[in-house]
């Protein structure tokens, strides 16, 4: 159990939610310290979006307690949402409006006056890298621009807490980096970010702490670096080639743990020297030696089978 403390931006305890008899959120506990970035990392269908919807008071959980920005959710969700920004998983900008109109109309939902919104728009456009696009129609924006506008829209009420549901899914590398940069800026300004993603590099790069979610359960939680240190051997060697699988089975003493997926064998090692010298004598095999990452932790804990 997590003790609820008013200092936390968000605390969730024993959260449960079922759909049609399926427990898609099955007892989740976490807390997010103000001014930090917290990640919910999990494959498709893990329950990330459902968890966020519960936190925002958009669906009533079957069990558990939620406090968001000092308010109890769902009871005081309206008050809580007044100080929250949301970047939803799927863009829902108003296609009939220009960039500026999208911001104005959205600001009004927070009870802001036109003057107050107008005053914020230049900063928001600057933040979103959309200077000069104020009067552009939404259809003329690229995917990355739309995502950034959605992020700017989420900032219209100058919230302390921002939820981002898969903010970079479907974006090209340049566009992802720009979003990451803006998210870094937000934490620098003291904002609290709650991020869902299935990109390991994104989680590793941005999150102070993260929880790995699978089938509605939290498998582990902690700082990305610590998760790698606790759950997995520090070195990984990936061996590729037609004979990789067979070779790996014959040399299974060369790694603490070995996994085979298709034509690749993964050796997880404390000490890679013996493995590398053995590989040296195998010109038919190619290999890649790298430090262990969050992705290795994730795969170890959630398995390799496909999700959809």
């Amino acid at each position, binding site marked *: 159990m997590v003790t609820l403390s008013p200092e936390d931006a968000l605390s969730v305890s024993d959260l449960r939610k079922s759909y049609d008899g399926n427990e898609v959120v099955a007892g989740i506990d976490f807390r997010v310290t103000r001014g930090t970035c917290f990640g919910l990392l999990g494959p498709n269908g893990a329950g990330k979006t459902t968890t966020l919807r519960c936190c925002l008071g958009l669906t009533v959980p079957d069990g558990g307690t939620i406090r968001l920005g000092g308010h109890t959710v769902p009871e005081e969700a309206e008050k809580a949402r007044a100080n929250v920004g949301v970047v939803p998983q799927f863009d*829902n900008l108003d296609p*009939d409006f220009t960039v500026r109109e999208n911001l104005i109309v959205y600001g009004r939902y927070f009870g802001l006056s036109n003057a107050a919104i107008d005053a914020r728009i230049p900063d928001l456009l600057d933040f979103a890298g959309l200077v000069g696009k104020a009067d552009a129609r939404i259809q003329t924006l690229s995917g990355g621009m739309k995502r950034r506008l959605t992020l700017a829209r989420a900032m219209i009420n100058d919230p302390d807490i921002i939820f981002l549901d898969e903010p970079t899914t479907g974006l090209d590398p340049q566009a992802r980096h720009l979003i990451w940069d803006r998210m870094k800026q937000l934490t620098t300004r003291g904002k609290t970010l709650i991020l869902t993603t299935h990109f390991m590099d994104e989680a590793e790069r941005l999150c102070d702490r993260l929880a790995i979610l699978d089938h509605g359960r939290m498998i582990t939680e902690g700082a990305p670096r610590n998760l790698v240190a606790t759950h997995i051997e520090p070195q990984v060697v990936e061996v590729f080639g037609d004979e990789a699988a067979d070779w790996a089975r014959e040399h299974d003493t060369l790694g603490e743990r070995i996994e085979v997926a298709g034509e690749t064998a993964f050796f997880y090692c404390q000490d890679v020297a013996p493995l590398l010298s053995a590989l040296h004598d195998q010109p038919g095999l190619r290999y890649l030696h790298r430090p262990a990452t969050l992705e290795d932790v994730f795969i170890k804990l959630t398995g390799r089978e496909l999700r959809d």
Partner: protein
Amino acid sequence: MSKATLFSLPRPGLRWLPVWRRNFLVWRKLALPSVLGNLADPLIYMLGLGYGLGALLPEIGGVSYVSFLAAGTVVASTMNAATFEALYSGFSRMHVQKTWDAILNTPLTLDHVLAGELVWTASKSLLSGLAILLVIAMLGLSASPLALWTIPVIFLTGLTFGALGLIICALAPSYDFFMYYFTLFITPMTLVSGVFFPADQLPPLLHAIAAWLPLSHAVQLARPLLNGQIPANAGGHVAALACIATLAFYVATILTRRRLLK
């Protein structure tokens, strides 16, 4: 969702106004031309049938057929405008564009969204009704100051059909679903509610049933007012429309909560 939350009475207060303003802004930008479109269809029927068919017909209740038809046209086109807005535009905002989802991420709730949509729908249909009223006045088909009372009747009619439309919107899996509502409800109702011919021409049983339909109440308010008479049982018809509107809005709220907040 608990039963208490699902069935709690909507309490939108006045915070629905930004939702109304959003729809108004879209309409101002894009839909102004559609007013002409909305207007043309009912006017062609009213004038074509009214003067063409009307030349063959005797007076009805002391007025020419075109004057008789004018009152029916006002309420029927109000009904159609409200129904189209709540069904097609409402569904597009709820399901296709996810506009409502965006709003739900702000401090507003679904109650605010639905109240804003309802009042917007009634506002837009009021405009359709008013435009036809204006043509009626210009053609000299109604000259009584009592005709001004049709304006609140039009708004109430818009609220009623807007609320009924929001029920259908909440139930719809796709746009195709709306055909059933038109074919099974709106079109037959238009035929039996006294829009085109006096409802007492109907077989007595059908007449008795038709009298309960919301469009009948609207016709029985609008027609005497346009002809310069105070409607018989005006209070009863207003109360009936108000009851249907209130009940329908409550049902629409419950169904939409069940759909979006589960």
